[in-house]
């Protein structure tokens, strides 16, 4: 180290150390809603310190483009921070793509600056950086496109899909290994990056909308790991720490999501999820169901002591959450105990349903996780299901032939009365018939979620 610059070098390292500590605190404070906003502040201070510290580095001679890029990036970031809560999943996928793009570009530039003089270890992590970054970039773009519905949401599958992916992956890794041994082979590098970009597309193509929570979490994890790999390349402990934190966060969320979807974790790791099984939908005779009007539903809800609302993504699609809040207010005023049962995969990303309900001003202590509320259903007078289907399907508990057998569900069938708001009897996203609808205690409330809840609210409020 040049002694002339040693002083500022130490200062920068200390700044990075403080920033790393703030990042860890930031995540720690996220553990509860009471402290979570301190977490943001800690993260922001850490980020400002880290960027400021970096600008102090003596090697930096050109400021103009840094400032232009920072301003442009902020300009893009502000509208991305203002999207509606229903659009948060696609925004998140898009930001995974941006993060991965940054990592891939820096990795590419580093390679061409250093080649052919790249030590073996550095070349290995550099390859890992661009492979993970590349596939996360296109994969996240695909996921964002599907969530935004600019791309078809239906899973696209073809024969030999896994074989093609596997071969491509082998070629990418093989080229990377060759580069580790012969870092001067510049012409191979675009191949590694290019194949990674293709793999990202192919990995997400066969995945349907219902699997999005798992995919987003997994891409989150990949984005973190690629940033950590970049930290190894640049020998930046700050980046390694931030990348490891993000990687483990995405990993934990992927595990939680795959458990909630009843998929094994290896299944998820290799991207082999999303196979559509449409066997059970056929051969169902039209069985009798009982239906009810908003007036009848209002009478039953008004007479209940304990009500559990089970919201699904359909509620958000119908924009019914604000009407649901009105219903919550009216029933609470009447002395009815109203709670909300949240399945881990309700919505399009982990925790999405909580945000949608919080946006509608429903207090978060009324939002109860699946494991906690399942024991309470036998003492529940009314379970009101709005826009949820598969997560309430009792076949997951009993019918071994059902494609969702073994998936943890909300035990709504144990409630005294079950009311289901649904447009029609057509099966849900996974195309699986739901025996819940034919139970004796079940009432089907046919109609648009927003209008139907609005109808109940009108009856209860008397205006």
């Amino acid at each position: 180290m040049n002694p002339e610059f040693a002083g500022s070098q130490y200062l920068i390292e200390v700044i990075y150390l403080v920033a790393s500590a703030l990042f860890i605190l930031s995540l720690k404070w996220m553990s509860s809603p009471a402290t979570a906003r301190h977490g943001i502040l800690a993260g922001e201070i850490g980020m400002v310190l880290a960027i400021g510290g970096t600008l102090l580095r003596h090697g930096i001679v050109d400021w103009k483009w840094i400032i232009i890029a920072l301003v442009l990036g902020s300009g893009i970031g502000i509208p991305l921070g203002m999207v509606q809560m229903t659009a948060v999943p696609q925004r998140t996928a898009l930001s995974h793509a941006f993060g991965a793009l940054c990592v891939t570009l820096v990795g590419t530039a580093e390679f061409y600056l250093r080649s052919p003089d790249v030590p073996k270890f550095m070349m290995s992590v550099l390859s890992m950086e661009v492979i993970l970054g590349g596939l996360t970039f296109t994969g996240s773009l695909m996921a964002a496109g599907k969530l935004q519905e600019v791309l078809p949401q239906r899973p696209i599958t073809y024969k030999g899909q896994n074989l093609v992916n596997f071969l491509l992956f082998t070629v990418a890794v093989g080229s990377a290994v060759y580069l580790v041994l012969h870092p001067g082979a510049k012409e191979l590098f675009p191949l590694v990056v290019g194949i990674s970009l293709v793999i990202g597309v192919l990995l997400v193509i066969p995945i349907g909308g219902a699997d999005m929570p798992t995919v987003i979490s997994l891409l989150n994890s990949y984005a973190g790991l690629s940033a950590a790999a970049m930290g190894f390349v640049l020998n930046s402990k700050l980046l390694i720490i931030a990348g490891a934190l993000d990687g483990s966060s995405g990993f934990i969320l992927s595990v939680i999501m795959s458990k909630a979807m009843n998929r094994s974790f290896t299944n998820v790791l290799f991207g082999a999820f999303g196979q559509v099984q449409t066997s059970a939908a056929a051969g169902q005779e039209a069985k009798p169901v009982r239906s009810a009007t908003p007036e009848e539903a209002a009478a039953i809800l008004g007479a209940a002591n304990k009500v559990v609302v089970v919201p699904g993504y359909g509620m958000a699609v119908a924009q019914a959450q604000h009407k649901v809040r009105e219903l919550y207010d009216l029933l609470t005023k009447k002395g009815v105990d109203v709670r909300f049962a949240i399945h881990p995969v309700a919505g399009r990303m982990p925790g999405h349903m909580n945000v949608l309900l919080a946006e509608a001003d429903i207090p978060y202590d009324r939002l109860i996780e699946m494991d906690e509320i399942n024991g309470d259903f036998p003492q529940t007078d009314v379970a009101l299901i709005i826009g949820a289907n598969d997560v309430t399907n009792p076949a997951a508990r009993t019918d071994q032939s059902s494609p969702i057998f073994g998936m943890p569900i909300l035990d709504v069938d144990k409630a005294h009365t079950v009311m289901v708001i649904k447009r029609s009897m057509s099966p849900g996203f996974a195309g699986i018939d739901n025996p819940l609808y034919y139970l004796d205690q079940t009432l089907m409330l046919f109609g648009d979620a927003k209008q139907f809840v609005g109808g109940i609210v009108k009856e209860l409020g008397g205006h």
Partner: protein
Amino acid sequence: MHSDLIDALFVFMLAAFIGFEVIRHVSPLLHTPLMSLTNALDAIAVVGAIVLVGEKKSTFATVLGVIAIIAATSNVVGGFFITDRMLRMFKTSRPAKAQGTKS
């Protein structure tokens, strides 16, 4: 160089363990803001891009670096912004009687 590598691996391992322990305790209630926050923090990769642009080693590197800074900065700004918006929405019903909360 060699000890640098070992140091880096130690840092990675410890940070991963801390990440697991800290994030395991995050309430599922906050998983969406958690993801947008980690996203913003992950955009610390911007420091690598800043060095790349600032050192001005080649036009190619500068162009890639500028795009990288733009991408990462949009994550920093957008990520913190939306996380804050989400967290401001979470309200409790009765501060006195916090039944049902795990926090």
